[in-house]
């Protein structure tokens, strides 16, 4: 637990987050392969081992393939080879990013701001849920096109990560927004909560892979894309499992595009605009803006 240090003391604004943070924080992202391009000090065994183990396991699963023999209620395990490999690789990279962060604890102001952002995101969800029948109705002639509207639902997670800049911010903000949406009541009921969890996990994994050091436009676009991948896969799995593969691919591409444009560009622009107003002055993202 954090030491009870007032976030509003003047001294706080002078202290820069942590010394090993790269000065180009917020710049373009080079997408370092889990620690390789990270500043010195991050390349510890704690970071490298999980990444290496995850990637090796994934490669093995991919190369060997799961046995076709034992079938899980009729569907062969071999069909799950690719998802399992991807899951293993992502888990390894995520663990690497997570363990090699400086583990700055969340201050009360971080938690409350993330919560408020989550609830505001939930408010945005409610507005968008209400307009969704109109939007999807307009696209009903070609149903997979409705994927271009999902980006609004991905915004709070990416925004939370960009504003708070702490491990877990994307997951917490998106999950809370989804819970609010479900509490108010929407077309999708309780599954909204699962959606929120996974939609937050997508960008969370990406920011973890970037070792929670990059929060610029590139990282934001990547976070939006990651959330888009998740929601595209989820929707084709939960709501449209009987679409043809062609329709499914179109839907997933539309969802990723929407995630990149609305959640990625949108969060980045919102964070910049928010920092300019000075509203973020007691948070890591606001401190960064002042330094520029």
């Amino acid at each position, binding site marked *: *637990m*954090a*030491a*009870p240090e*007032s*976030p*509003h003391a003047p001294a706080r604004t002078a202290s820069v987050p942590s010394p090993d943070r790269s000065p180009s924080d917020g710049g373009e992202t080079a997408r370092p392969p889990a620690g390789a391009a990270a500043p010195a000090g991050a390349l510890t065994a704690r970071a490298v081992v999980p990444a290496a183990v995850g990637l090796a396991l994934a490669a093995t699963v991919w190369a060997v393939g799961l046995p076709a023999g034992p079938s899980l*209620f*009729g*569907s062969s395990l071999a*069909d*799950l080879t690719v*998802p399992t490999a991807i899951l293993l690789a992502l888990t390894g990279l995520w663990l690497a990013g997570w363990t090699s962060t400086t583990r700055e604890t*969340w201050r*009360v*102001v971080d*938690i*409350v*701001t993330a*919560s*408020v*952002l*989550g*609830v*505001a995101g*939930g*408010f*945005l969800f409610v507005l968008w849920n209400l307009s969704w*029948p109109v939007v999807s109705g307009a696209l009903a002639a070609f*149903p997979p096109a409705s994927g271009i509207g999902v980006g609004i639902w991905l915004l709070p997670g990416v925004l939370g990560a960009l*504003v708070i800049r702490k491990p877990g911010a994307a997951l*917490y903000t998106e999950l*809370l927004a989804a819970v*609010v949406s*479900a*509490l*108010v*009541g*929407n*077309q*999708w*009921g*309780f*599954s909204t*909560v*699962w959606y929120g969890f996974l939609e937050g996990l997508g960008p969370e994994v990406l920011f973890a892979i970037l070792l929670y050091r990059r929060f610029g436009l590139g990282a934001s676009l990547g976070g939006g894309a990651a959330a888009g991948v998740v929601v595209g896969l989820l929707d084709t*799995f*939960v*709501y*449209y*499992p*009987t*679409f043809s593969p062609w329709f499914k691919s179109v839907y997933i591409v539309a969802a990723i595009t929407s995630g990149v444009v609305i959640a990625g560009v949108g969060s980045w622009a*919102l964070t910049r*605009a*928010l920092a300019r*107003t000075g*509203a*973020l002055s*007691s948070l890591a993202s606001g401190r960064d803006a002042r330094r520029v």
Partner: protein
Amino acid sequence: MTVLSLGADRDLRPDAFVARANPVAKLVVALLVSLTLLLTVDVVTAGVALALEAAVLPWCGLSAAGLLRRGWIVVAGAVPAGLVTTWLGVDSGEVLLAVGPVTVTQGSLLAGCAITLRILSVGLPGVVLLATTDPTDLADALAQVARLPHRFVLAALAAMRLFALMGSEWESLGAARRARGIGDDGVVGRARTASGQVLALLVLVIRRGTRLAMAMEARGFGAPGARTWARTSRVRRSDLGVVLAGVVIVTVATVAGILAGTWHLALT
């Protein structure tokens, strides 16, 4: 008292078996049911689960009218999703209806029914959970029973109190913009106006959040040391019964689906 306007409580019996259960028990059931049913798309599993859920409804403390008022929106989402699948799903079996490029076959009709039933059976426990649970009780239970980090749970609860405020702020922001002559008609114009208004709303709520954090910290929130609770959240033996009932529902539904041969993992 509920934070969000979930409607009057008059069609709710708060002393019903499920309604007075610990919120965490209800949450476990809702998570369990949704996870199990999302694994498969078949009429038998979803249908059996929905029937069993309907059978235990009398113990949930929610009257039919209350259920309809809170749950209609789930139906409104489930039916179109099923129709889309019936229209566009992979065709198989006998052709029942063919209008131009659209064909409805036995296979796609069955798939459409399965989708609708699945959304309904996943949604019903959620409707009951949300209708019969006070957010404050839920937060207490999540922090004390489920042992989630209490700073996050309580901050989320505090932030939820701002939700109703956000609605009125959204309206006054819109009115202020109209008074200044900002605000366009049409789809594009309204989208542009709304995006500007989102930023204004975010500035307002973040400023309020920062002040709230200061006020909470000034009263010792987040201080080191053990936290004590004014409201204790207890787990009773009947809560175990609620969880067991949930386990029975998903087990019976899944076994029925497997026996009928319709259960198959929807991942593939």
